[in-house]
């Protein structure tokens, strides 16, 4: 049964090199002593660690729990003890370490409790989805996108695609899996179909894998015969061998002729696409109840004496694999995880196998010679001819190199799938993909930077605004006070003049009243004194209010008036201080009053504090005075608004300080 297929643009035919690893069947290795499990084996947030060092874990036990929606669980691949949770070399092209859980295996392979599902058709879709989610399954073709996210799509799915293309040279893990476990894969597809309820199931296999195609056809046939009521039949489609037909976007185009919109997902087209290994893992999770703890990895490269496919526990260090495939590790020049087109070079043999490691290539410099020096681009267009995303790599290269990211984006840099076809054909040996990765990094960085600088700008503006508001508020208060003081002084001056007059008339009474109010240390009297002081304070504050209003009125009348008013204030002030001097002569200093009053307070504050309070009050007063002088000088000398504002703020702070230290002095203003 042949089905129409479509072509994607470009594509290349790199040497296959698959025959080395297909002759042997899938085998297992002895249990490694140590399993290193990176928390980040998938796209999305790393999981939350549930175990701690020293814990004993069982095979299949949950070690780290998915954090957020796009994340995946991580399970113990074998039983043993957690000996370390720390940064280890991991599968990242940067070579930067990542957090790992290290398990020392005990060789018992003791399973934790598992829950196989006998008949998944009795379950409902959400339960199955939860099972898949719990099993920590991610896309095993290389990208590592959590599978439950893909399957749990809310969109209606019409086509389920099994991406069994495996177009990368060297890799044969899916090929072998299909040859040996076709029935299980078909079963996995049926489970997915049960959840997603698509109209058709398509399996795309490159025509260089005739055995796999035959095995899958047979299994599909048997499955339809066994379950005549199955929702929909599986169609095996043999697709032409061309790289990169195994790219998700490319296989969708080949099988359906549709293009995934830029920035969109296959589910936007009603398509869900899964890799062979993933579907097999889903089947194991549902039918056997086993989480994802192992995978098939191809060991190949010309230094590997026993190449082939190995069912390996996740977390097995690559060195273990090298050792058991009799690889001359000291000749390794390039150690690649993944295929030769899109894989990355590892920096250490201690890196563990993870969920996405489909292949390890150990090669010397005969097999993968170092790239010759880059030459100038001659714009031959060979790259554009092979680009499956139909981009113009030569332009992208040009703009990435000169960091003109706007232009690079205009030429759709972000749609590049980094397949490497362009680099493969470039006669000038330009590492185009690296330029694109660099360019994409720049795009991301600039986005982060713009975001950050936008935020900084907003915060800075908010900060400025706040400062301005504070300053404005202070300025307002200052003016109110100034006006209040002015009025008060006027009144007080009058009052004092009268008093003076009275004193002059009858000095002894005045003196005695003054003595009474200040020099009575007894508790009761102190209380009384306190009362009087309080009432004085309320009276003063009332006067303040009146004065405020007056000043506001004055302000409304215009600047001239204010200036005049200020002059008046000055005059009044001098008068007031004169008056005050006179008063002082008649009265004991107010500083003495305070300790008396403080002593009287019931909580018996020690004397020291009182003296310090007095000193503080005094200094505060000096500050107020200084500030006011400065302000006046500035006002007189036509200083700029800013300076004035600044000074007035100073003055206000000084005043507040003073108020704090001498709250009971209603005549604070006068002290100036």
């Amino acid at each position: 049964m042949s089905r129409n297929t479509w072509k994607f643009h470009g594509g290349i035919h790199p040497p296959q090199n698959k025959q080395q690893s297909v002759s042997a069947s899938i085998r297992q290795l002895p249990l490694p002593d140590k399993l290193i499990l990176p928390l980040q084996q998938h796209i999305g947030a790393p999981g939350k660690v549930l175990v701690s060092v020293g814990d004993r874990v069982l095979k299949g036990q949950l070690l780290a729990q998915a954090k957020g929606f796009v994340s995946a669980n991580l399970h113990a691949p074998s039983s043993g003890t957690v000996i370390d949770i720390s940064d280890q070399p991991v599968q990242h092209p940067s070579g930067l370490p990542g957090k790992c859980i290290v398990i020392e295996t005990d060789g018992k392979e003791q399973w934790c409790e598992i829950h196989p599902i006998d008949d998944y058709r009795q379950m409902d879709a959400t339960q199955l989805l939860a099972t898949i989610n719990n099993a920590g399954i991610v896309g095993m073709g290389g990208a590592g996108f959590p599978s439950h996210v893909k399957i749990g799509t809310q969109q209606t799915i019409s086509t389920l695609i099994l991406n069994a293309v495996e177009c990368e040279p060297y890799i044969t893990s899916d090929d072998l899996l299909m040859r040996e476990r076709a029935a299980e894969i078909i079963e996995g597809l049926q489970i997915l179909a049960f959840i997603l309820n698509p109209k058709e199931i398509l399996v795309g296999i490159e025509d260089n894998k005739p055995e796999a195609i035959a095995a899958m056809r047979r299994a599909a046939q048997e499955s339809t015969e066994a379950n005549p009521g199955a929702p929909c039949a599986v169609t095996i489609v043999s697709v032409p061998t061309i790289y990169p037909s195994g790219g998700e976007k490319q296989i969708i185009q080949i099988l359906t002729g549709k293009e995934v919109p830029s920035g969109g997902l296959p589910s936007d087209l009603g398509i869900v696409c899964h890799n062979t290994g993933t579907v097999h893992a889903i089947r194991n999770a549902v039918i056997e109840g086993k989480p994802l703890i192992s995978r098939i990895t191809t060991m190949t490269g010309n230094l590997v004496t026993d190449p082939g496919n190995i069912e390996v526990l996740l977390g097995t260090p690559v060195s273990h694999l090298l050792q058991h495939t009799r690889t001359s590790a000291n000749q390794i020049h390039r150690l690649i995880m993944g295929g030769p087109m899109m894989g990355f070079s590892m920096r250490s043999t201690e890196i563990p196998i993870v969920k996405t490691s489909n292949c390890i290539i150990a090669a010397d410099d005969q097999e993968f010679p170092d790239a010759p020096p880059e030459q100038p681009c001659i714009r031959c267009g060979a790259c554009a001819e092979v680009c499956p995303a139909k981009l113009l790599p030569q332009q992208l290269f040009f703009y990435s190199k000169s960091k003109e990211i706007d232009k690079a984006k205009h030429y759709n840099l972000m749609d590049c799938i980094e397949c490497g076809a362009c680099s493969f054909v470039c006669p000038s040996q330009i590492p185009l993909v690296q330029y694109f990765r660099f360019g994409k990094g720049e795009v991301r960085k600039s986005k982060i930077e713009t975001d950050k600088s936008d935020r900084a700008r907003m915060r800075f503006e908010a900060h400025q605004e706040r400062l301005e508001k504070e300053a404005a508020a202070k300025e307002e208060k200052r003016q109110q006070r100034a006006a209040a003081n002015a009025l008060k002084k006027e009144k007080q001056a009058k009052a004092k003049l009268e008093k003076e007059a009275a004193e002059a008339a009858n000095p002894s009474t005045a003196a005695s009243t003054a003595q009474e109010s200040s020099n009575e240390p007894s508790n009761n009297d102190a209380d009384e004194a306190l009362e009087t002081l309080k009432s004085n304070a309320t009276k003063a504050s009332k006067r303040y209010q009146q004065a405020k209003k007056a000043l506001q009125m004055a302000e409304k009348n215009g600047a001239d008036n204010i200036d005049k008013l200020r002059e008046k204030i000055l005059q009044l002030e001098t008068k007031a201080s004169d008056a005050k001097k006179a008063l002082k002569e008649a009265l004991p200093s107010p500083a003495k009053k305070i300790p008396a009053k403080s002593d009287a307070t019931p909580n018996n504050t020690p004397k020291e504090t009182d003296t310090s309070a007095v000193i503080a009050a005094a200094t505060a007063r000096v500050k107020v005075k200084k500030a006011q002088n400065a302000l006046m000088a500035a006002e007189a000398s036509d200083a700029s608004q800013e300076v004035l504002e600044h000074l007035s703020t100073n003055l206000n702070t000084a005043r507040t300080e003073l108020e704090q230290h001498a709250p009971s002095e209603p005549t604070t203003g006068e002290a100036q």
Partner: protein
Amino acid sequence: MEIFIAIAAVLGMATIFGAVLGFIAIKFRVEGNPIVDQIDSILPQTQCGQCGYPGCRPYAEAMANNDEAINHCPPGGEATIQELAELLGVEVIPLDQEHGEEQELPSVAYIREDECIGCTKCIQACPVDAILGAAKLMHTVIVDECTGCDLCVEPCPVDCIDMLPVAIEQNTWTWDKPAGVGESSVERIPVTNIQEAS
């Protein structure tokens, strides 16, 4: 008579075209940001004041209104100068070293929290309010919001603020730009094989 027809025709055409042009001008008017905003959006918003202005926006205003030179912003460095040159149609000039040097890596402030005495001086200095804390309590920097402007370092009476380069992690790491024409972009990593040694 003909002359009037000619004049009328010319006037008529002028009116029609004028109307059309006017309409187009209104219909397709480009809502351009005022130039200050455009300049400000190029500046890094570090708000460090190294340019001699109390923040990026004042510098942007000075460039827009007073022809201030475009090379006074060290945090922005070459890239900013280039963008400014492009926007303002002036020549690219090297960074004025008097205002400071461009830093290789962005850095952010960290407060050594056990040494912090809670004097709030750094809070007052921070232009983007990236420091949290209250009087007499330990302070801390919101790393994500810190622009690395350095302004909080100097006011700290106990010198407990460090400017540390932002560490590159797996998710912020990017590939380097290849070395360019004439070079092969290969990095060699010396490896000692534990397996072989044992």
